C-alpha cells in the first residue's frame, strides 16, 4: 500500500547535516531572544505545541501512521499533571513525570487496539477512542468537567527554582522542549529509526527480512504518545489550567495542521508549523470563527499544492536537509 509521503522529501544522507546544525542554531537563538521581544506566555505555548507537533511528526513522518486522536495523550497527561500538582501537592518534576507516564500507558492501550488496522482505519480508530476519552473527561469528577482543573500551582522545580517567576518557567520549558526535540532527532537517526523508515517504505519487505513490524510500530506509537504527553504536562503548568479543550478532537486536528503546514517528515517543520498556527490563533482571535475557516483553507491548500509544507519546500529549493 502506498505510504503517505513523497519519499524525495525525506532526509537520506547523513553528511548533508550541516544545514540541520545551522537551522538548530537559528531556532535556539530565536527562542533565547524571543521573550524579550514577544509575550513570554505566548512563546511558551508555541514551544509546548512545537514539542507536541514533533511527537506527532515522529508517527506520521517516519512511520506513516496518521493519528487523529493525539489530543488524548496531550490532554490526559495535562489532567494528571494538574491533579498531581494541585490535589496531591507534588513538586512540578514529579507531576510532569506522572503526566508523561500516563500518556505512555494510554499509548500502549490505544496503540495496541489501533495498530491492528492500517491507514484510514487507524485514523478513524484513534479519533473514535479519543472522542470516547473526551466524554469520559467531561463526566469524571477529578477532571472538573467543564470547569477543568484551575489554579494549579507551578511550584518549585527540584525545590530550588521558583517556577512562578515567568522567566524561570520560560527557561525550564525551553530546556525541556529542546531536550525532547533532540531526543526525537536521535530516535530518527538510530538503528531503530532506520527500521521505521524501512517499514514506511515497504512493510512487506521489512517483514520478509525478519523484523516484527507490529512491535516496531507500537513502540514508535508509544514514544510519540509519551512525548505528546510531556508537551501536555508542560502546557498545563504554563497556563495553570487543564481543561476540556486539551482533549477535544479539534486539538488533534490542530496538531495535524501544524505538522502538515510545517512539513511532514522534516525535522524543523513541526516547530515552524506550531509557531505559525499558534500565532495565527492568537493574533486573529478578534475575528472569531474566521480562524476556523482559515485553518480549513490552509489544510486544503497544503494537501493540494504544498504537500511538502513550508519547511519542506524551502528545503527542496535550497537543496538541503531541514
Amino acid at each position, binding site marked *: 500500500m502506498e505510504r503517505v509521503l513523497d519519499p524525495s522529501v525525506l532526509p537520506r544522507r547523513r553528511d548533508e547535516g550541516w544545514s540541520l546544525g545551522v537551522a538548530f542554531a537559528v531556532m535556539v537563538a530565536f527562542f533565547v531572544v524571543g521573550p524579550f521581544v514577544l*509575550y513570554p506566555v505566548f512563546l511558551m505555548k508555541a514551544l509546548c505545541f512545537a514539542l507536541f507537533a514533533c511527537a506527532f511528526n515522529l508517527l506520521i513522518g517516519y512511520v506513516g501512521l496518521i493519528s487523529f486522536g493525539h489530543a488524548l495523550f496531550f490532554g490526559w497527561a495535562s489532567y494528571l499533571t494538574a491533579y498531581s500538582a494541585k490535589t496531591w501537592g507534588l513538586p512540578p518534576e514529579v507531576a510532569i513525570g506522572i503526566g508523561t507516564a500516563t500518556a505512555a500507558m494510554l499509548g500502549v492501550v490505544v496503540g495496541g487496539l489501533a495498530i491492528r488496522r492500517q491507514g484510514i482505519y487507524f485514523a478513524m480508530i484513534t479519533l473514535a477512542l479519543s472522542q470516547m476519552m473526551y466524554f469520559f473527561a467531561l463526566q469524571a469528577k477529578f477532571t472538573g468537567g467543564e470547569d477543568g482543573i484551575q*489554579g494549579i500551582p507551578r511550584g518549585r522545580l527540584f525545590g530550588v527554582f521558583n517556577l512562578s517567576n515567568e522567566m524561570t518557567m520560560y527557561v525550564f520549558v525551553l530546556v525541556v522542549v529542546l531536550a525532547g526535540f533532540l531526543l526525537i532527532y536521535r530516535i530518527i537517526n538510530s538503528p531503530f529509526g532506520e527500521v521505521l523508515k524501512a517499514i514506511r517504505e515497504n512493510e512487506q519487505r521489512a517483514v520478509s527480512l525478519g523484523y516484527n513490524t507490529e512491535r516496531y510500530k507500537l513502540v514508535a506509537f508509544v514514544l510519540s504518545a509519551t512525548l505528546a504527553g510531556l508537551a501536555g504536562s508542560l502546557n498545563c503548568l504554563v497556563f495553570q*489550567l487543564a481543561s476540556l479543550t486539551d482533549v477535544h478532537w479539534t486539538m488533534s486536528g490542530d496538531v495535524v495542521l501544524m505538522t502538515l503546514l510545517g512539513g511532514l517528515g522534516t525535522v524543523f517543520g513541526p516547530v515552524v508549523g506550531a509557531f505559525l498556527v499558534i500565532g495565527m490563533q492568537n493574533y486573529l482571535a478578534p475575528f472569531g470563527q474566521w480562524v476556523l475557516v482559515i485553518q480549513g483553507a490552509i489544510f486544503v491548500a497544503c494537501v493540494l499544492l504544498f504537500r511538502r509544507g513550508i519547511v519542506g519546500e524551502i528545503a527542496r529549493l535550497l537543496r538541503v536537509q531541514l
Partner: protein
Amino acid sequence: MTLTGRLVFAVAALTCAVASAQAQDDVVVKIGVLSDMSSLYSDIGGAGSVAAAKLAVEDFSPAAHGMKVEVISADHQNKPDVGASIARQWYDVDHVDVIVDVPTSSVGLAVNVVTREKNKVFLVSGAASSDLTGPKCSPNTIHWTYDTWMLANGTGKALVKTGGDTWFFITADYAFGQALERDTSAVVVANGGKVLGSVRHPLNNSDFSSFLLQAQTSKAKIIGLANAGGDTVNAIKQGSEFGITAGGQHFAGLLVFVNDVQALGLKTAQGLVLTETWYWDMTEANRAFTKRWQVARPGKFPSMVPAGVYSSVIHYLKAVAALKSGSDGRAVVAKMKEMPTEDPLFGNGSIRADGRKIHDAFLFEVKKPEESKYPGDDYKLRATIPAAEAFRPLKDGNCPLVGG
C-alpha cells in the same frame, strides 16, 4: 538674576507644575468586556454587553471626573483556557484594569483566579456559579447580576408554594448542571415538595426524546430543566412535540433568559416559569435604557446580563473616581463594597463582604401569544422576591473572606 527674571522663572515653573499636575490628574481606566461573542451565549451577553458597558461609560461622563476610560472586548468562546489566556494577556500586556461580564461559569472561575493573582478587578455579570461568592470568593471579585442559588431558590420555592410540588429533573451532565439540580432539589424538599426522579443528559445534546419520555412516565407536575442555552431550547421544543404541556406537566427553566424565550417563540414557550433580576419592560428607566441599547443591537432585547454590566461598570467608575486610581484591585473592590449602589436600572442596593451584590429578584411567567401586545412583550410578573431573601445568607456560603 534680575527681579523680572526671577518672576518670569517662577511663573514658568508654576505653570509647568500646574500643567503636569493636570496631566497626572487624568486617571486612565481600561475596561475589558470578556464575553461569548460567537457561540451559545452570544445573544445573552456578547455584543450586547459591550454596548451596555459603553452606555455606562457615556452616562458616567469620565471627563467630568478627570478620567479617561477605554472599553475593549474579546471572545472567550466559552472555553476556560481561552478566557484565562486572554485575561492574563490583558492584565500583563494591555494594561486592562477590570474585566466584566464573562458568561459561562467555568470561564468565570478561571478568570477569578487570574484576577486575584494580578490584583485587578473582576465584575461578574454573566456567569452563574454561586461558588464565586462561596468557597471561591475573592477580594478582587464582585458577583453582580444573579447566581445559581438565587435561581434555584426563586423558581423552586415559588413553584412549590403554588402547587408544583412533584418534580422531575432533566440535568446537563456537567458541574454546572449538577449544581443547579442539587440546589433546586434542596429548595423543593425544604418547602414540602418531592423529587420523583432525575436523568442526566450529555452537554450540547440534540435529542431529548428518551429523557422527555422518562419525565412523562414519572408523571411529575414540574419538569425542572437544569441546563442552559441550546440544551434548554431543545428540550422545550421537543417537549412540545411530545405533548408534554398538553399532558398537564409544566417546564421550569432554571436558567432561561429573555433571548431564549424569543428564540423559542411564545407559542412554544408559553407558561414557562423563570427567575430574572431585571426585565426591560418593567420601569420607564429600563425602557429608556433598552431604546438606547437597541441602537447598537437592533431587533434584540437586553437580558439581565447587559443590565448588570451597565450597573457594575457605573459603580466601579464611581469607586475609582473616589480613590483617584484604579491600579489596586483590592482597594477598588473594598471601596465598591463600602459605597451603596445606585443606578437607573437596579435602583438602590448594596454589596456584601463576600462580593455578592444584593437586589430584588422576580419570578416571571411567559405570556401566551394572545397576551403579547408588541415585540418583546414576553413576561408577566408572578412574584417579587425581596433582596433580603433572594440570595443565599452570608453565613451559609463558606466564603473564607467572611469570618466564622
